[in-house]
């Protein structure tokens, strides 16, 4: 890079180095936009979370909103719903994605490009669109899925009307939408695992499972870390699917933290409480992401 300037008095720049201001000029739009639409809103939300509307005015109430959260049964409901969907959906989806990536990478599978496209294409569908689509597919009386279940002799399932099955419906919709995305990330990483490793292991008599366990999985560690952290962050912010599929119901069974924030902010116009929920969510995301990074990093050593 540029050599340290040994003649500070000489202002003329060395031919072949950029003016000092150049990187700042390239960054100027980002800095302005960040300050206006990110930094200011985050700081303002932090202040809002310490206030409450009283007689039409935003009044400082200290940690009152956070105290209220601690004793709010609906918040705990939203928190436990979100965590439940998280611990079931993320491992299920990433497990499936891993198997798919291995299959896509295997010479055993024919016409790989076609199947890869089929699994990947749901990602283009917007959340509202697939929410609408799944709400018709999962319709209790007339949905195609219940019809299919019935025609093979299984009972109908109250997909969206029952607290238990409503969660399952959301998990199915999420898995349909995002599995291909994770599989593509795994596949790319798999293709960077040298083939000689597998050949050597095969010559040494390692079984297919041993090869998967000792070569494939360690090779995928960076991609697994990344997808676990990203999927966790995404699921903790879950909003669109329950909003469109179940509207948080029945009886708040699919109410998520994101939905509860939205309801408080834009249905009850309790901006202070909504902001407090947002900051608690931020805290949970930060803690979980840190724990996951630690756990997945340590195993590498």
């Amino acid at each position, binding site marked *: 890079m540029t050599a340290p300037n040994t003649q500070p008095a000489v202002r003329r720049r060395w031919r072949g180095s950029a003016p000092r201001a150049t990187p700042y000029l390239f960054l100027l739009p980002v800095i302005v936009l960040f300050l206006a639409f990110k930094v200011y809103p985050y700081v303002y939300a932090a202040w*809002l979370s310490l206030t409450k509307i009283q007689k039409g005015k935003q009044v400082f109430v200290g940690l009152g909103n956070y105290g209220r959260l601690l004793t709010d049964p609906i918040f705990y409901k939203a928190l436990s719903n979100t965590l439940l969907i998280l611990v079931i959906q993320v491992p299920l989806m990433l497990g499936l994605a891993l198997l798919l990536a291995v299959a896509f990478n295997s010479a055993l599978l024919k016409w790989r490009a076609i199947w890869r496209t089929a699994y990947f294409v749901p990602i283009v569908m917007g959340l*509202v669109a697939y929410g609408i689509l799944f709400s018709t597919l999962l319709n209790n009386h007339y949905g195609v899925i219940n019809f299919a279940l019935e025609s093979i002799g299984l009972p109908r399932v109250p997909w969206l009307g029952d607290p238990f099955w409503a969660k399952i419906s959301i998990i199915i919709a999420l898995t349909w939408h995002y599995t291909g995305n994770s599989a593509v990330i795994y596949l790319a990483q798999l293709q960077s695992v040298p083939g000689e490793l597998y050949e050597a292991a095969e010559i040494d008599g390692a079984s297919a499972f041993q090869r998967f366990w000792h070569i494939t999985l360690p090779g995928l560690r960076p*991609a697994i870390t990344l997808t676990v952290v990203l999927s966790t962050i995404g699921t903790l912010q879950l909003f669109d699917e329950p909003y469109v599929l179940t509207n948080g119901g029945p009886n708040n069974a699919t109410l998520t933290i994101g939905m509860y924030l939205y309801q408080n902010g834009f249905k009850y116009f309790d901006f202070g409480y909504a902001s407090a929920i947002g900051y608690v969510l931020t805290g949970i995301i930060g803690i979980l992401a840190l724990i996951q990074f630690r756990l997945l990093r340590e195993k590498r050593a």
Partner: protein
Amino acid sequence: MRTDRSPQAKLASMAVTTVVVLGSVLMLAPFYWLIVASTHRSRDIFSNPPNLQPGDQLWANLGKLFGEAGFGHAVLNSTLVALLYALFGGIVCTAAGYAFAKFRFAGQGVLFGMVLVILALPSQVTLVPLFQIMVQLNWLNTYQALILPNLALPFGIFLMRQTMLSVPDELIQAARVDGAGEFRIFFQIVLPTMRPALAALGIFLFLAQWNDFVYPLIVLRTSDAYTVPVALASLQGLSDTDYGQLLAGTLVSVLPVLGLFLFLQRHFVAGILAGAVKQ
């Protein structure tokens, strides 16, 4: 590639292929249902046994959608907003990525740290303040309210920085020695080498804006300002939802991005991977 075709290998190959194919049928089935359902009347969509053959009501559904429901506004809004967002977001993120990848300057660590922190923070925290900003600026129901807040997208900046790292320094240095201005270097030398990454970023931004829902739902208060997802959700919220019309609208919302995806799949995948694997 193994060349032995033992009976066992053939059997394994058939088993793997069968499972993968069955799975892909499940993945594609909702698309088939979408096409079929959008060609029926509302009452024929919900029938037992279900109609799994295409019907003849597609044009009638589309007619109602674009006529009474005024869906044309939403398609126009979404198209313009997504194109403008992809264009300006692409420029802003690429310029920032270039600064981070190819310069050393005071405050660089702090600024890049800020990008990463904003990438990880849940954007829902900003919903209320952004709403209030838009009210203050009198920007509710405007394109700028949709476009500006996420124009500097942390993921996009990160993606472009990663890609820029592979542009050789010598190329830029040589141009400087030849006396080229900094902006000329950026536009005429760096950008042309970045075409695949730019395509990936552009598609990503277009798709993100086209499908965005929560934030537009908040800042768009009148139906003529709605984008496609908000218009769809409002159609679904009606007490007597016309599902034929609603699913035709859903089809309209999916087709452009599906086409974009099928034609540019390579770039699409590249965009996801560049952000994901090269950490």
